[in-house]
């Protein structure tokens, strides 16, 4: 494998890894809505360990491995399978939901509680993943009553956010290109012009040298009996 092929492969691998990382982060962070019925709401003392990055950020100065009271919402899908959401304030940096109404949300969820026999269908907006092995839960953001389990929900928010991110990326790219074109490349252009000037000078010097050398070798030739040029 030539080095060029290797570099090309490396470039594409890096691109794919970057694309996948962005996709995974977006899939975790962007809201999605489940159609479920809320079966129970409660809070439970929860010990957070190495999975802390999937929980709300604790306040500065508190221990990473801590036990705290977290609100949970238990729910069931129309097909009977279950899901458990946590209901925590997000804090102010990441993920950027700026959610501070967890108590109200818990009250709303409690109000909408129902049983599979007499279901009240709700759409729970949430982000995050439920991975039982790591004890991580999606964070519920909003709960709204809907007319039935067959309602079709269109992900407007996700489309708007992804379009905004794409626009921001294009803006930054245009910004970088402008900087490159107007600020960096002109410097190289000047450097190049200087190099060319030096080269031209060098050529002139070399031409003189060549002429002198031919005179000298012609003079040498007179000693060897070679015919003069």
């Amino acid at each position: 494998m030539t080095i060029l092929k290797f570099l090309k492969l490396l470039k594409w691998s890096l691109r794919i890894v970057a694309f996948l990382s962005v996709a995974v982060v977006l899939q975790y962070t962007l809201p999605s809505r489940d159609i479920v019925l809320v079966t129970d709401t409660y809070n439970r003392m929860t010990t957070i360990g190495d999975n802390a990055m999937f929980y709300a950020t604790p306040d500065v100065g508190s221990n990473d491995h801590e036990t705290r009271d977290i609100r949970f919402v238990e729910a069931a899908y129309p097909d009977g399978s279950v899901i458990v959401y946590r209901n925590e304030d997000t804090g102010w940096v990441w993920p950027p939901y700026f959610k501070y109404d967890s108590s109200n949300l818990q009250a709303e969820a409690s109000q909408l509680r129902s049983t599979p026999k007499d279901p009240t269908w709700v759409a729970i907006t949430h982000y995050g993943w439920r991975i039982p092995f790591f004890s991580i839960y999606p964070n519920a953001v909003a709960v709204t009553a809907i007319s039935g389990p067959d309602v079709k929900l269109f992900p407007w928010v996700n489309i708007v956010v992804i379009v905004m991110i794409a626009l921001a990326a294009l803006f930054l790219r245009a910004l970088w290109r402008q900087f490159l074109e107007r600020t960096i490349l002109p410097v190289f252009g000047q450097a190049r012009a200087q190099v060319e000037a030096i080269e031209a000078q060098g050529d002139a010097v070399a031409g003189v040298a060549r002429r002198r050398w031919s005179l000298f070798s012609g003079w040498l030739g007179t000693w060897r009996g070679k015919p003069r040029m």
Partner: protein
Amino acid sequence: MMQIIRFAVLIVAIMSLLYPVIAIFSRSLALEALERKWEASHPGVVGVERDNFLAEGMAAYRKSLRRRIVPFAALLPAVAVAAIAYLVNHT
């Protein structure tokens, strides 16, 4: 409370880096457009006339609506945060 302050400081820090960059970018685009315009009407002509044309154009740019709108870009993050917080918590 500390979290909000930290977040505000972060945003101010990011925007005080980003805002000058955006302002320079906008200026640079305006100058480039003027240069293109000159090149289209006076191909190959350089010198005092061109310098004057560019200087006048940039003076007009400094008074333009676009130049006056640029500072509002610095407010965008705050507006976005307020909008998201409102939608998440109060609707």
